């Protein structure tokens, strides 16, 4: 029996894809949509960016997607340029890099360009903002659309000026006749006209060599709003008559509500109570009184007696692991090649990690007759549109999602529980409702990065060549699991997926976390490579170069080593240097760290990190450098301190007192090298640098002390224990 997939199934699958093998933008066959009428006069170019298409190419059956174009560009009567995409801005700087691309191609000043992002009524369907995809997938099509718009403007100008097209070029928002010097502005050309084009990909895009804006550092376009406190995040929005909701929460995941005595809460003046089988909430126009009402509820829960905790979780995961899926294979990994040394086998562990964005989930929902509007901190506005419609039992077209600025996502805002709660409560209350989570709710309902186990067997021959690699990853997921060294006998097997694991696997929800799967995989792989290097008695950089045949990876490693000032030495050298390599979202990275280890306490401090990155055409080097710095700083958390401790379904770390994220004093000296690869298509920049942090720290600790860490985070306690073992 064929089962129709729902949109929500589709989102789940889309989340899991690793978009690295894209060829080119597909031909567009879009049909005009009703709302295009709204755009009035001007030039409108419809664009198909390849993410939906990539999914189709993946050979999976997909339900009908709502649109076959997914971004567009408008030049208005005032000559101003607007780009529309369903992606959102959550700190990654896409709002700037996309605007920059448009300004460049159309020869207009950057401040003539506006980006409208994530509004489900104005922007075409989009799967969500994650996977470092915004610039990678929307950069090239937006550039092509801008080129198309420019061609249209030149045609119009040729007619208006009565000159040949070949004689015309654009500059500063106008078309200029190179021979006569006559100018006509875009505004003059567009006035009263209405031109609709679909991107057919024929227009010539500017060659990287003539770029004037792309590739130059540009400051963020949203920063003034953000430094003055004017930028609105979801919890900052107000609607007349709105109520603040506080929701009764269980003490543990899977705990069942036995009874709730609401009588005291009811007595508080102005409190509205919503009671549904799966949702009990108190609402008030003042959030403090809603808090008080929540505290007045006396509830009893039946707590399940699950014994799994953060210590026993790894055995549990191994015991529930499904059949493995071979991700990559070559040679004969089963039989031990004769010329090899003994096989080195280790198991690597990684605990649950929280997203812990500084902005907790928030949403404001308003129902006005048929029309539902939701402002929410979400990475997936279109998914939310469908979720809200199905929660209310109304057609999706009645729902409009308008994401304001999002205060960090990293994958954590791909799920929209808070917004669905808000819209259900708005329906029940008959008034606009704000649900804005407390930090404790945020930690409790976060979709954690899954705990995972990696088992690796490897061997080298006497010359230091890796001869065998047998890699099994349990529940971290496939992204980044494949090794990229030149190994004759290798196999990579994934047991269980990254986050859509079956019931009974994880005690709470898990999900995508910045560079999903790849942090765990890179930690395990690069730690093991280092172990093999040490066994072979070789310098870790030399050992890697010897075993690599991928020229791009070699170039990136050499660039990092050169900037770091690496001199060869066998580890442990006492210097505290650690190197690691990885590939994520199409981008190649090499990182090198220098750490200090306090032997008596086990405390590790990371002093310096160098990152070299080949990300193809880098649209906004300033933005990319900032992303690298962000990745390195954030990565120190999962490497050194972050883990969610729990007992059964009870989450123990519910605020920043015990869940420790990186602070100012942790930040090392950071240096980044972005390799010049102007003629290659742009690759992801928001995630790659973070994947190596676990391994560079582990390898540097080994180099400093000779102690090998097999479990993240590498807390002082664990480091101390490892030191005692040697």
């Amino acid at each position, binding site marked *: 029996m064929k089962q129709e997939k729902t949109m929500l199934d589709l989102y789940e699958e889309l989340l899991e894809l690793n978009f690295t093998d894209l060829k080119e933008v597909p031909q567009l066959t879009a049909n005009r949509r009703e709302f295009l009428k709204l755009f009035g006069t001007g030039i409108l170019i419809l664009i198909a960016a390849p993410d939906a298409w990539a999914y189709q190419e993946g050979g999976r059956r997909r339900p009908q997607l709502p649109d076959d174009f997914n971004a567009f560009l408008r030049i208005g009567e005032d000559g101003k340029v607007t780009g529309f995409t369903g992606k959102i801005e959550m700190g990654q700087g896409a709002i700037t890099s996309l605007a920059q691309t448009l300004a460049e191609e159309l020869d207009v000043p950057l401040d003539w360009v506006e980006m409208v992002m994530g509004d489900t009524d104005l922007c075409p369907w989009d799967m969500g903002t994650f996977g470092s995809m915004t610039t990678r997938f929307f950069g090239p099509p937006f550039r092509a659309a801008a080129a198309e718009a420019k061609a249209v403007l030149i045609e119009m100008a040729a007619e208006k000026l009565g000159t040949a097209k070949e004689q015309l070029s654009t500059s500063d928002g106008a078309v200029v006749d190179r021979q006569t010097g006559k100018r006509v502005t875009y505004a003059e050309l567009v006035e009263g006209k209405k031109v609709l084009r679909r991107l057919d990909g024929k227009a010539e895009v500017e060659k990287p060599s003539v770029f004037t804006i792309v590739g130059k550092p540009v400051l*963020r376009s*949203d920063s003034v709003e953000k430094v003055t406190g004017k930028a609105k995040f979801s919890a900052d929005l107000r609607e007349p008559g709105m109520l603040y909701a506080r929701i009764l929460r269980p003490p543990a995941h899977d705990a069942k509500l036995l009874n709730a005595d609401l009588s005291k809460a009811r007595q508080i003046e102005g409190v509205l109570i919503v009671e549904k089988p799966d949702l009990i909430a108190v609402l008030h126009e003042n959030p403090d009184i809603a808090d008080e009402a929540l505290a007045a509820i006396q509830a009893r829960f039946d707590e399940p007696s699950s014994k799994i905790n953060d210590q026993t979780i790894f055995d549990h995961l191994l015991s529930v692991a499904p059949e493995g899926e071979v991700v990559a294979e070559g040679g004969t990994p089963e039989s031990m090649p004769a010329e090899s040394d003994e096989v080195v086998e280790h198991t690597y562990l990684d605990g649950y990690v929280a997203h812990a964005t500084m902005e907790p989930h928030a949403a404001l929902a308003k129902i006005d007759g048929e029309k539902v509007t939701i402002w929410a901190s979400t990475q997936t506005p279109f998914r939310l549109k469908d979720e809200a419609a199905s929660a209310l039992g109304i057609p999706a077209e009645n729902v409009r999602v308008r994401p304001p600025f999002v205060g960090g996502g990293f994958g954590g805002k791909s799920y929209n529980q808070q917004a669905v709660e808000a819209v259900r409560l708005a329906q029940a209350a008959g008034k606009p409702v704000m649900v804005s989570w407390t930090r404790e709710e945020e930690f409790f309902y976060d979709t954690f990065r899954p705990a995972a186990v990696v088992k690796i067997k490897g061997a080298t021959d006497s010359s230091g060549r890796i001869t065998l690699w047998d890699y099994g990853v349990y529940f971290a997921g496939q992204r980044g699991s494949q090794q990229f060294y030149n190994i004759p006998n290798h196999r990579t097997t994934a047991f269980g997926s990254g986050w859509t694991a079956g019931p009974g696997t994880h005690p709470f929800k898990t999900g995508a976390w910045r560079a999903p799967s790849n942090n765990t995989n890179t930690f395990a792989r690069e730690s093991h490579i280092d172990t093999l290097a040490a066994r072979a008695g070789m310098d870790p950089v030399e050992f890697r170069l010897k075993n690599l045949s991928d020229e791009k990876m070699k170039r990136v490693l050499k660039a990092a080593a050169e900037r770091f000032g690496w001199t060869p030495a066998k580890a442990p050298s006492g210097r505290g240097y650690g190197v690691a390599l990885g590939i994520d979202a199409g981008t190649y990275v090499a990182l090198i760290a220098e750490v200090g280890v306090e032997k008596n306490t086990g405390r590790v401090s990371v002093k310096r990190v160098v990152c070299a990155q080949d990300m193809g055409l880098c649209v906004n080097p300033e933005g990319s450098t900032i992303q690298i710095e962000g990745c390195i700083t954030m990565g120190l958390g999962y490497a050194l301190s972050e883990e969610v401790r729990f007992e059964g379904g009870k989450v123990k770390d519910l605020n920043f007192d015990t869940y420790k994220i990186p602070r100012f004093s942790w930040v090392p000296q950071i240096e980044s090298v972005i390799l010049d690869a102007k003629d290659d298509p742009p690759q992801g920049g928001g995630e790659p640098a973070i994947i190596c942090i676990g391994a560079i720290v582990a390898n540097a600790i080994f180099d400093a002390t000779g102690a090998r860490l097999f479990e993240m985070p590498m807390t002082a306690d664990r480091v101390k224990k490892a030191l005692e073992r040697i």
Partner: protein
Amino acid sequence: MKKTIEFMLNGEAVSLSVLPSRSLLSVLRQDLELTGSKYGCGKGLCGACTVLVDGNTMRSCRVSIESVAGKKVLTIEGLAPAGDLHPLQQAFVEEDALQCGYCTPGMIMQAYGVLLKDPQITREEVIRRMEGNLCRCGAHKRILQAVEKAAAVMREGR
């Protein structure tokens, strides 16, 4: 029981009838509609809600409205006259010291309080005094650069 509380907010006198135990953060955000100060943890653990009370940095989530009666409160909205940027804000823009921007108002207010007390401050001391302000996006490096830049401007007197 509600109480009338009077204090100076960003240079102007305000008088409010509120429950005295409510947090300053809540009153700022709800009653006064100044949403620049953010909620991040509610427990004094993140600094997103930082404001100045009589020139001292305070976590407004941990300060009751009653306790600021008669005092001077400064929030991110009052740091510079409308349409103008304070040297710290200017430096945050120039140094690209933010990503998502959620921690930014708290960072700027904390830095302002620190520089106000000691414009000659060393980098080590800035790090120590900013340690309680969290940023998940990892903008720390640039925030420090921005604070140093602003400190230089402020020393020259503005």
